[in-house]
């Protein structure tokens, strides 16, 4: 009897844990998205210089590498998540100001924003409903990301616009893969820390938005 109770109770508890992680992750992700958008709006209004983007991204990366791993299992991790997403949102200000100044700028920004939302909801919804295990993609995605970073580094010096667009297109594909991978990790119990999960998903969305903005800006004929 005890053995039966154990086998019945264990999957139920596991499902409860997964549901809790999913609920907490999407709630925190929504809150950080709103906060990030607010910070981006502030940055646009006060017209921050282009250097802001670099400094904010650098600050956020330092928080992700040095502070987040030490705080992710405590309540203070929540403050760190808001600091990271706030910084990244604030850094978007100069980029948004640049695109908004284009003749069809508001349309480009709105399309990139809406498009990012559709891609995220579609992919995350697919992984959630099918409950497929996408863990086999991990090695391929991280190797692809590393290669893209190396090409990005080279293009800083080469300055080839077509290569820059190709990088943006590949980043969208890789981040889309990461959305499937991360969501499946949550669904299949591979990741139980909703703070780490929120940061991962936020970075996927953030990178898709920036890349989409660049592609739409270039093909609108005004970049």
């Amino acid at each position, binding site marked *: 009897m005890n053995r039966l109770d154990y086998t019945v109770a264990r999957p139920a508890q596991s499902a409860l844990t997964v549901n809790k992680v999913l609920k907490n992750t999407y709630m925190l992700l929504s809150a950080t998205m709103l906060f990030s958008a607010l910070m981006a709006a502030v940055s646009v209004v006060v017209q921050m210089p282009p250097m802001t983007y670099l400094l904010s991204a650098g600050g956020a990366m330092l928080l992700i590498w040095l502070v987040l791993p030490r705080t992710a299992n405590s309540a203070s991790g929540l403050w760190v998540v808001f600091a990271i997403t706030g910084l990244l949102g604030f850094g978007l200000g100069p980029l948004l100001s640049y695109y908004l100044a284009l003749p069809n700028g508001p349309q480009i920004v709105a399309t990139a924003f809406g498009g990012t939302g559709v891609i995220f909801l579609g992919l995350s919804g697919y992984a959630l409903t099918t409950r497929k295990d996408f863990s086999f993609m991990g090695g391929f995605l991280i190797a692809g990301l*590393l290669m893209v970073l190396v090409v990005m580094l080279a293009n800083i010096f080469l300055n080839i616009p077509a290569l820059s667009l190709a990088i943006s297109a590949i980043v969208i594909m890789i981040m889309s893969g990461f959305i499937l991978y991360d969501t499946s990790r949550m669904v299949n119990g591979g990741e139980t820390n909703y703070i780490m999960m929120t940061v991962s998903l936020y970075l996927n969305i953030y990178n898709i938005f920036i890349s989409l903005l660049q592609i739409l800006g270039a093909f609108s004929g005004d970049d």
Partner: protein
Amino acid sequence: MDWMKIGSAILIGAMILFLWPRAKQMMQESRKAEPGEWGSVLLILLAVAGFVVLLVMMVR
């Protein structure tokens, strides 16, 4: 070369250095795909690419 380029290069270089150990670990520990698994992923990514093309056509 301006400061933005130098700063960007430093940031991307740091990202590569930071990601390298994690990438090595993920590549070693990642499970092998079963037949058909990559096919479904490729279809999904193709749909994403098609959607991006649609968005580009919308802003042109």
